[in-house]
């Protein structure tokens, strides 16, 4: 485990403000310092990642939390673009969705998603999942150091 000096930069791509708040809420209790950047659709996500438009000053995130069903450009497309862009493909993408469809699970892994998480029903479970993400991705797993 590497001790980090700077907080973990998280890009959350989520169109539902209620979910955004819930995720913010659950990450607030995190022991690992992190910064959550939120965009509400796929196009904005790519602008953020490419530091375009309003996001010229954006940092490259350490990890992406990606909802699948998004307006305009959906999560699958964002995933496909990220995983085929040499500048971005190293960033772990965690699909966080309410879809239980087997097809979605398979498709996402085929597009090289790093993991697929179904949004749990119930606050308790939601907190649990947030804890697990933290523990694993910010603790157990070693992330690449940004260039």
């Amino acid at each position: 485990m590497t001790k980090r000096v700077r907080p973990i930069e998280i890009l959350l791509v989520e169109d539902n403000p209620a979910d955004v708040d819930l995720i913010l809420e659950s990450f607030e209790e995190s022991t690992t310092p992190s910064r959550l950047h939120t965009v509400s659709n796929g196009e904005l996500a790519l602008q953020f990642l490419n530091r375009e438009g309003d996001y010229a000053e954006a940092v490259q995130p350490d990890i992406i939390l990606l909802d699948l069903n998004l307006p305009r450009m959906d999560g699958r497309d964002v995933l496909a673009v990220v995983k085929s862009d040499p500048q971005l493909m190293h960033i772990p993408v965690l699909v966080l969705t309410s879809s239980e469809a087997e097809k979605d699970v398979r498709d996402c892994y085929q597009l090289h998603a790093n993991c697929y998480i179904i949004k749990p029903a119930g606050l308790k479970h939601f907190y649990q999942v947030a804890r697990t993400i933290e523990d694993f991705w910010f603790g157990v797993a070693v992330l690449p150091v940004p260039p």
Partner: protein
Amino acid sequence: MLRGGNKKNRSERVLTKSLPMLMGVIVFAVFLVWSWSLYTGWAPSPMVVLTTGVIVCTCLAAIAYRAKRFRPESDQERVHTLEAAVERYRNVIDTAPSALVMVDPKGSICLVNRAVERLFGYSRTELLGEPVEILLPEAARGHHAAYRSHYVSDPKPRIMGQGRDLHGRSKTGASIPIEVGLTPIRMPNGTYVLSAIVDLTFRKQAERELAKKTAEIEAAEKRYRAVVDTSPSALVMINSDGKISLVNQAAEQLFGYEDGELLGQEVEILLPKSIRGNHVSFRNHFFSQPEPRVMGQGRDLYGISKQGDEIPIEVGLTPIEMPDGLHVLSAIIDLTHRKQAQRTLAEQAEELRRSNAELEQFAYVASHDLQEPLRMVRSYTELLEQKLQDSLDEKTRKYMHYVIEGAERMQRLISDLLAFSRAGRRELERDPVDFNKVLSHVVTLLRATIEERPGAKVTWDPLPVLCATESMVVQLFQNLVGNGLKFQGDEPPRVHVSCEAKGDTWLFSVTDNGIGIDQKYADRVFLVFQRLHERSRYPGTGIGLAITKRIVERHGGEIWFESQPGHGTTFFFTLPMHPKGQKDPPI
């Protein structure tokens, strides 16, 4: 003049009468020769005299005989001659193959020959002098006298009763088919009539046999014609020139031609114009190598009706050797309906695919879009509860609990309904599944439930391996074993699974010692959302057995139960040992 007959008698007679005269002539001749020798001084030897005498005598005798021939016969000789002639006539008449009957002007029989005796079975003496009607059938006798006198009034040789079937009557009463030729013979005392009677028995019999055979052939022909005509396949036969030599009603109907209109036409009349040219060479090729086969296999064939409509067809060709050469019989099947059915089927399949896709979409919407707001309701109610923990009174906390519980139940209903829909739609993948492993897995899945109930035990006999969709089989046992554990009274729950072979199916049973099910609910328990107990006692959505039933049926089996309330329940289900096909389409 008739000659011959008693030649020997006659020459004897002549010889006896002329012998003395001959001797005299010889003596006279010898005297003449001797006188001539005296007169001329010629002195021949007595031998010469005798020889010359004999020669002269013979010449004279010959002259005398010639002279006698032109001499009129005596009355006695004439009688002899006539008698001989009559004898000859009688012989001729008697040996004639036709029966001859002569009738005198009074209508009595005055002459019959042996053929008449043979034909009618009477002897000559029985017939002579009898009225000719004795030889006629009783029914014809009455009119015959009138016919006879009519004939005599204008007697000409002719055939009797032309165009009618004539019959004679034998002595025994048998009817004899005959043909009668009539010849009038005028005599000084009136007109005699000679009837030449030909026995037609054999001819009639032959005619009858011929007629019978012809009828048989006609009947056979009719039968075949009927078979050909009622055949649902259109049949068209062609000869080696490609001309239609036989066509049945189905073919005429199919191509829209009138009765017999196609006979003699070239078969290409039934083909679309574009392929007529090629067909002639195909046809010739077939005649050169005639073997039964299906025409244009793998291609879509079309015929053309009289009205010019193209008809999709299938054609079977059979060469048939006939007395007038090789013919080819084409059995033509109209594919219009089949093609139509194929199109309809394809359309329905497309429709089904579309509706399946819609269902898929619905299922997705249900799983995601319906769950999402419920998740919000639940999560935020819980969040509120957590944030406001201290300031909430008992009542508010209870109400919030209802909100959370309602959302929770709704979530479960949606996911169960989704599972039910998936059990129906998902494609079956049939791989060998070890049911023992399935049971171990199910026990792991149900661990929480088992641990909740003290003393709960799930056991199973050795189970078979058979082709099925593993995830469905897991769900099937999870539901059944789960129910067995859930619907329990105060006893420690026991669930046992066993299996036995029944013919070509496996019969599975899942037995519990629970509260049992009243048999009157036998149909209801397998319906969606049917619950028999209040939710507070036995929680659940009431969809588990509906899913179970669907899984069993999709695998080609049946499910039912036997139960005594208070004494447990056994669920039985069957699965075929050899499922049909590796895959089957979703419902």
